[in-house]
């Protein structure tokens, strides 16, 4: 038990270190000098040398790497060129904003996906199962950014029902109730669009998993005993069918992050995705490195959590001693 989790944590650390190293290498492979941001033609050579020394650029690369790694792992991500303040404070805000969006998307897609999947499994090989399947395929084929634009032009520009972007209204009057309402209105479109592909994946997963369980001997036995259909379904089948879902948590995270990069940019949602893309256009390397790091960390932690959860929920792994 301890050995299994310890091993997983060790590998996660190795992966994070590897990712950090790789991003460092990529950034230093790039043509051009990171100091060039601060250097203008009228500045004399001595000042240039000072700037370079302050940025630690004249040291050998390996030393730069070690210094950078030490600072980085203690949470000092440096100063953002474009925001002119500590990267950690920029990232902190952005992460919180992204978290609000992604958590809502995750919960929403889980509820819809599980219900649809159950329905499709109960009605499998009927017309409703087939129509759900086609609908999912359609969800999965929609480019989120395009759908966002189309829905914005319908609901925001034409009908004026929903805001077209940002997290909250600029001028906000009223008490806490109005504020919450305002936030929800801003969340509806981005959350809906971001959850579509996940609804597709979850539904398929739940359908397959439930069908598997329903085909097993113990369900047939329960049926032979004459237990009511609903009792079999909800009491015995569903529990076992939904357990493997925890492994999907870890797999969703990279896609959730990637999807939010795009959706945040369409809706001007001030989260990680938007910060990263803006950092890229501003060549803001400290910020790019930090967002890469946070993204990698999120994915690795997500995988770790789902591994550990799976270990707990599935006795076969616990007893079999995989890993």
């Amino acid at each position: 038990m301890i050995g299994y989790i310890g091993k997983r944590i060790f590998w996660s650390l190795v992966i994070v270190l590897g990712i950090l190293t790789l991003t460092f290498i990529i950034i230093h492979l790039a043509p051009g000098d990171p100091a060039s941001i601060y250097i203008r033609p009228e500045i004399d050579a001595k000042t240039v040398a000072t700037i370079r020394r302050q940025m630690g650029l004249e040291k050998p690369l390996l030393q730069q790497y070690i210094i950078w790694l030490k600072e980085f792992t203690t949470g000092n991500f440096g100063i953002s060129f474009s925001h002119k303040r500590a990267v950690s404070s920029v990232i902190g805000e952005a992460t919180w904003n992204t978290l609000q969006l992604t958590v809502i998307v995750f919960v929403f897609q889980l509820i819809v996906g599980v219900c649809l999947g159950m329905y499709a499994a109960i009605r499998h090989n009927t017309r409703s199962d087939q129509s759900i399947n086609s609908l999912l395929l359609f969800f999965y084929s929609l480019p989120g950014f395009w759908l966002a634009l189309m829905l914005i032009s319908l609901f925001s520009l034409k009908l004026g029902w929903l805001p077209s972007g940002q997290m909250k209204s600029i001028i906000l009057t009223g008490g806490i109730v109005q504020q919450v309402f305002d936030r929800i209105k801003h969340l509806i479109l981005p959350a809906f669009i971001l959850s579509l592909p996940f609804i597709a994946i979850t539904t398929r997963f739940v359908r397959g998993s439930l069908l598997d369980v329903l085909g097993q001997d113990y369900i047939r036995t329960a049926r032979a005993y004459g237990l009511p259909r609903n009792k079999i379904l909800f009491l015995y089948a569903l529990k076992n069918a939904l357990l493997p879902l925890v492994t999907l948590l870890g797999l969703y995270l990279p896609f959730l992050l990637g999807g939010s990069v795009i959706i945040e940019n369409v809706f001007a949602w001030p989260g990680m995705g938007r910060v990263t893309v803006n950092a890229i256009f501003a060549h803001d390397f400290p910020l790019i490195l930090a967002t890469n790091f946070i993204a990698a960390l999120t994915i690795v932690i997500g995988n770790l959590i789902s591994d550990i959860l799976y270990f707990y929920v599935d006795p076969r792994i616990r007893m079999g001693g995989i890993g």
Partner: protein
Amino acid sequence: MMWAGRTKETVFFKRRFWRQFKKQKPALICLSFILLLGIATTFSAYLTGYQPDVQGNLVTERYQKPSLQHYFGTDKFGRDLFSRVLYGGRISLTIALSVVLLALSIGLMYGMIAGYYGGIVDAVMMRFLDFWLAFPAIFLIMTVVALFRPNPFILIVLLSVTSWMETARLVRAEVLSLKSREFVLAAKGLGISDMQVLLKHILPNSLNPIFVSAPLKVGEMILLESALSFLGIGVQPPMASWGSIINDGRDVLLQAWWVAAIPGLFIVLTVLSFNLIGEGLRESMGIRK
């Protein structure tokens, strides 16, 4: 292909498979749509009298509604959108197909080697694969693109190196089960070299999972490439892809809806078609969902 005659396993060469596939109506319709689209985008120069990157009269020809003259209307530079959508489609499709070809080849080789040699080789290779899987692909792509000016070649390479892992896993699993089959053992017993066994006996037999996943992957790549181009970190002007044309229409959603709407419809139809083809392949191979 030299091994085509030797294998009995590659589904692609089985008559039964094709008989099944012919029954998949939606997949066939989609396949014809894709072929038609491929022909139309390749020969777009002959289909329209307009050039995708030639500006029209900026006073009289900007943002014209779709008409008989300009089937899909014009954009802010008075460029003909029909020719642009076809041209953009050529870029999008070329990138997506090249990426899938490259990613599948990498995945195939990687999975075969890891599965066949097993032991420490397999362990190390799978760890490396896990590492890549944990890498936030879109962030890596964005970082590299931020540093080097993006061009289609870099895009193809980046998208390929971040999308081969699934295939490698599938192929490895297939090879693991093939390795202990009699015909492989027999081949080894006859003293045939590892390379020969891999190429002539394992390879043709481990292609099946790839056939199913290939169309799905093409769809995925079209979506990813268009999203990157839409964000401005993919295909750069004067080149155009469906994603970047949608970006052109982003600020004129009400005044000129066609600029953003039409290329998006093309993406939806194309990706949906590839997904349905994948579905059809899976059905004809008798793989359960």
